[in-house]
Structures are given as C-alpha cells and as structure tokens.
C-alpha cells in the first residue's frame, strides 16, 4: 500500500514529522480508553503528532456486514471527511483498519466525488502495528514486562492487512517478556462483530475452543490487536475463572500495563 521509499527502514527519528489522525474505534472509545492512550504514546514516540478528532464515531462495519449499504456509505463519508486532512490515519484495530482501507473504496466505487476520496484515504490508513514497523521503521520499544505472553492473530489484521510479523518483532524487544506461540493463532476466536450476537451458540463454542488453546500455552497474559477479539476471549476466560490477563498489544508496547487488564479490576489484577 505504501511506496517503497516510505519503508526504507530508516529509524523513526530520522523521518519528517507526520500528523496522524488517530481513529480510536468505537470499542476502544467505549470500553478501553487506555488502548487509545497507548496508541497515541507509541505514535508520538515514533515521531508523529497525534490528533484525535472528536467527530469520530464508528467505521460502519456493522452496517456494511449486515448488508445495509446506505448507512454504511453515509458513515464512510463521515469518516472520510473527518480524517482526510491528515498525513496518515492510524487505527489500533485490523478490522476497522481493513474496513477503511479495503471496503470504503469498494463501497464508494461508483461515486464520482467520494470514490476518489475513499481511495486516497484508504492509501494512507494503517493498522497500528503495520504503521509503526512498515511505515515508521520502528525497530523496537522501550518497555519492560516480566511475563509469559501469548498472541492471537486477529483475522482482518492478518488476512486483509498482513499484520503478523510486526507485533512479534516489537514484542521481542520488550524487556523480560517471553512469547509462547498460540497453537491455531490464525484461527478465528468466534467474535465476528454481529456474528457473536446472531449465532451465539456457534460463537460460544468457537471461543471456548480458542480459550482451551490459550490456557494450554501456560501464558500469564493474552495479547491481540483488536478489541472485539479481546473482549470475546477475555469474557470467556473470566467466565471460566481463569487468571490469565488480557490486554491489547499496544498497552504492553507502550509500557502502560499498570492499569487493570481487560475484564479485571485494579484490586483483582496481579498475575498468577
């Protein structure tokens, strides 16, 4: 998506400063503001000026995936208008990032005005991990966490945006952290947006199977890059009484793990 010159591998501080519009996603906004702040910190450390437009809402995926094209288009136009002034748009979610960079152009393809604007926005929109490593050339982070972690590859980030090596590369530079790979890390956790509400029985079985794999890794902490998957897996882990903590990968990379993990309270935090 980006031109080769953008990914020449120069260290971030050698780059021209860029103004990034942070698209926080509705789930981060509502459920996990700390992911938004961690994202902003990582972007600032990578030499970017971060702006969070307060007219952002949601990327429109629920409407798009439910077949409601008219609402999906209307929401897409809102997002485009809000974010097109920025050098880059960064999203701490592969699913919402994929919505903007893959599906907006398709959705507005036949619109003579919004079609080109959707394509321009798509070309400068990135999932957070891909942006840090592929665009800003980030080689590592200054973070410390004594924990054994495992990592789930969320589907849209993995298959629509090619996010696989980037988070692992950065996690490898976190002091004290050990990564135990999750068997079936590329298999869906059963969230699927409205899928988990429309087909709760299937979704429930899928997340149970996923959680069994997670528990078998003996990790203290589960990481992923998408709040939907994280809420789903954390919700199931907690229902099973597991003490495995759950966090967005950005929180660990930004060294912001003093808050309660997802689904925990500050008092109930603390590793096994």
């Amino acid at each position, binding site marked *: 998506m980006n031109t080769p010159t953008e990914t020449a591998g120069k260290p971030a501080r050698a780059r021209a400063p860029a103004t990034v519009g942070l698209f926080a996603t509705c789930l981060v906004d509502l459920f996990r503001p700390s992911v938004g702040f961690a994202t902003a910190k990582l972007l600032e450390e990578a030499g970017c000026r971060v702006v969070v437009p307060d007219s952002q809402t949601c990327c429109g995926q629920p409407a798009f995936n439910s077949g409601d094209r008219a609402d999906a288009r209307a929401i897409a136009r809102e997002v485009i208008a809000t974010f097109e002034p920025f050098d880059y748009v960064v999203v701490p979610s592969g699913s919402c990032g994929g919505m903007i960079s893959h599906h907006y152009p398709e959705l507005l393809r036949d619109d003579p005005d919004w079609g080109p604007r959707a394509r321009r926005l798509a070309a400068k929109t990135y999932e957070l991990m891909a942006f840090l490593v592929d665009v800003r050339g980030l080689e590592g982070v200054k973070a410390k966490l004594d924990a054994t972690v495992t990592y789930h590859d969320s589907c849209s980030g993995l298959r629509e945006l090619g996010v696989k090596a980037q988070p692992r590369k950065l996690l490898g530079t976190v002091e004290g952290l050990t990564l135990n790979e999750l068997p079936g890390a590329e298999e869906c956790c059963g969230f699927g947006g*409205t899928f988990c509400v429309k087909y709760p029985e299937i979704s429930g079985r899928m997340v149970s199977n996923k959680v069994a794999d997670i528990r078998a890794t003996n990790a203290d902490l589960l990481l992923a890059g998408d709040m939907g998957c994280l809420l789903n897996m954390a919700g199931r882990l907690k229902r099973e009484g597991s003490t495995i903590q759950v966090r967005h990968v950005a929180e660990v990379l930004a060294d912001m793990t003093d808050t309660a993990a997802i689904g925990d*309270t500050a008092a109930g935090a603390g590793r096994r």
Partner: protein
Amino acid sequence: MEATSHRFKDNVHEALGDANLQASLAKIRSGFVPKRAAAAAALPEFETLRDQARDIKNHVLGHLDIYLERFAEAVEARGGKVHWAETAADARRIILDLARAGNARTITKSKSMVTEEIALNDALEKAGIEPIETDLGEYIIQLAKEPPSHIIAPAIHKTKEQVAELFLRHHGRYGKTERLTEPTDMVREAREVLRQKYLDADVGITGANFLVAETGSIILVTNEGNADLTLSLPKRHIVLAGIEKLVPTLEDASTMLRVLARSATGQEFSSYTTLVTGPKREGDLDGPEEFHVVLLDNGRSGMVGTEFQDMLRCIRCGACMNHCPVYGTVGGHAYGWVYPGPMGAVLTPALIGVEEAGHLPNASTFCGRCEQVCPVRIPLPRMMRAWRTREFERHLSPASQRWGLGVWAWFAKRPRAYRLVARTAAALLGRMGRSQGRLKRLPLAGGWTRVRDMPAPEGRSFVAAWKADGRPTEAPGAATARRHRGSAKEQGR
C-alpha cells in the same frame, strides 16, 4: 435432497451436542489443514498456479456459450451424446429415460455430488432401480441413509466405530459377520462387497471434475479407482456435470489438476486421474458401448454476469470448508443441503433461494481463511456479504436486527449525539461492572453473556478523556491539507 437450511439454528444446536461429530471434526483440523499447507509449501509456483487456475475459469465463464457448444460437438464427434438439462427435474427425467432404455435394474455411481443436488437416488429408487454408491464415503452414508456432510469426504462426520457398526448391520447378507476395528479391514470388506455390484450394474453414473472443450473428454479424479470400474464395466456410461465444469483445453485441465488435489487432500495428485473420451471404439477391448453427458444448468447460468459469477469458478476441492472455523464447529449437515461450508454459503442461496438458505451467508465471522486457501481465489466473504445485502434490501433479515442496526446507525451518522451516548454508556456500564471488572449479565446481550462475561468499560470514553486532557482534536491547518492533497495527486493515488 430435502433442504433444511432454514432450520440452520436447530441443526447447529444438534451438531454441537453430538460428541461423535465433534470428535470427527477435529480430524479435519489435524489432517487436511496441515497437509494442504505442506503441499502448497512444497510447490514454489503454487501461488502462480492459483492465478492461472482463476484466469482459466474466468475466461471460460466469459465465453461459456462458445465452450459449451465446442464441448458438445467434440463429444458427439467421438460417438457420445450430449443432453441439456435446464433444471434438476429435467436432469432426473433424462437420466431415468436413459436408464430405462438400458433396462437398468442396478446402477453404480461414483463422484457424484451433483447427483445429490438433483436428488437422483430417490428418483431412481422410486422407479425401481437400485443406485449403488461406490465412493467409500458415499457408500457409508448411503448405508446410514444420510446426506453427505462434506463434498470430498462425505462421511467425515462418522467415527470409525460408527462405520464398523453400519458394516456389521448391512454386510451380514454377504456373509460378513465380524465386527471390524481397523479402517484397512473396513476398506477391504467394502471393496469385496462392491466388486460384485460393479459386475452386475447395467449403467454407470459418474460426475466429472472437468469437461474439456477441445476434445470432448471428461476428467475424473479419485483415490479409490471406483470411478474407473463404474464407467468401464457397465454398457452405458452417463455423466452428470454442471455447466461450469468446462475448461478449454487439456493443457488448461492439467493446470487445474495441479491445484485440485493439493488444495483438497494435500496430495500432489490423487491416486487416479482418468480421462474419458467417448464410448468404446471398434477394436477396444473395454469400455461402455454408450457415452452420455448430461449438462446441468439448475440456476448456474443465472449467476453469470451477476456479483455471484465468481462462485462458478469453484472446483469443489473442499479447502474452504476444511479451513472454516464455523464448518469446523458445526459440520456439514448443519448447512442443510448438498454444499456446506463457505462455498455452500454462497452457492446454496443461488441454487435453492436466499429465502430458504439466508442463514448460511450470515453464519460467517468473515475471518477470510476460506478465500486465503481457495485454489481459484473466489472472494467468498465478499459474496456472502452480497447475499446479506440482498436480504437486507428485500427485508428478509430479522426485524429485531434491522431495528437495532437502525438505531445504532442513526447515532453513528450524528457525531454529537453519538459522543453524548458513548460518554453516558461508558460511565453507566463502567459503574455497573466496577466491582468485578466485568458483567455477568447484560440486558439485550443474552447471546453474549450466556457463554462469556462482558468486560466492563473503564468508565470514561476515550475521545472525551483525550479532550478533557486538552490534547489536540482539530485537524491540522488548511496548509497541511493542501500540501497533502498535492502530494497524493503526484503519487497518482
């Protein structure tokens, strides 16, 4: 077969409670998936071949009329006969007429998922003709009186103990009364029972993996060799194939064959790849005296030129279902018709109607793994989404979903109202879940909280907190925007 796709949720409930089925489904994950990955990794040009395979099928679909005519001419030039079946009923009638003209009492069958589509076995039985499935998997489910649950492994839902039980119950009349435990012994016993059936059959019916326009040949791919016996021993060979099975040349067919078995079973090639061109010729020692090809449309030509045309590229390898987390959780019977998994979720609504099969394209998380492994790169999630769009436009989706979606979209389009609600909801839910960090029950989210807790929000909305910190929320100045627009233009974006 009778479709039960509209009862999808009931089918799912049953499947999730079936311990034998769940044990069988685990075999797919540990078997087909790593085998395909290894086969793909061992062939450096695999990705290029997938592109070629896609292009070949796209070319055929762009000129379907021409290639159908060419194929028909080539078949007839070699002494065969082509029959055109617009509907399933037409196909049944044509095949029954051919069977009766051959005085058939028993018919052996092989490689015939499409005969399930037209419910041929029922029709034959009603006409007093005994159909005998000869693919081992099809044979097993015929004994069990069940429909297939997978397109290349139709009995994958059965455990070996269940197969042993079926054989014990049905093979007694052939003098086989021992309860078997080893799969190899079961295969041997099925072979012995079927051997006589091949010799007795008056007609052999097969499907076709590919139809070759240039030569009028059909290509059959099996691992058991049963198709060869089915087509060569009886006097009459009837081929039933969908019109989308065409490829232009033998060269093209060889490209398709290189991706087929690798995608399906992880084999380089299957054990038998048989090309059949016309009936037995003068001087030939073996082969059928008559060679009939029944070309089935049954809704396929209606997909040409629509957003579902790409589905006609499908070569029925089953890779999408092997890699689908939903198929892997519920199995093929839940889908309620012949074609399960992601390919079924697109094809079934096209062939039997979205009113009947509307659940299928909805029961996907859009994880995209099906498209990732499809040998002909069918954009399966995109087409499932297209079905959802049709359902939405025709008001077929449930009212509660439409209502919920409408309310949510109203706010998503109005940032000020949205911010107010987000802020309130975050605070409210945060307070409800504060003591434990999660909610055990949440009104209107029973589907979620039945199996998992709802992690509680932190209690403030990110955008509101960011703004309260006095951090920037304004887009950069017009100058920045102009500069960016300029550079975007230069890059031709």
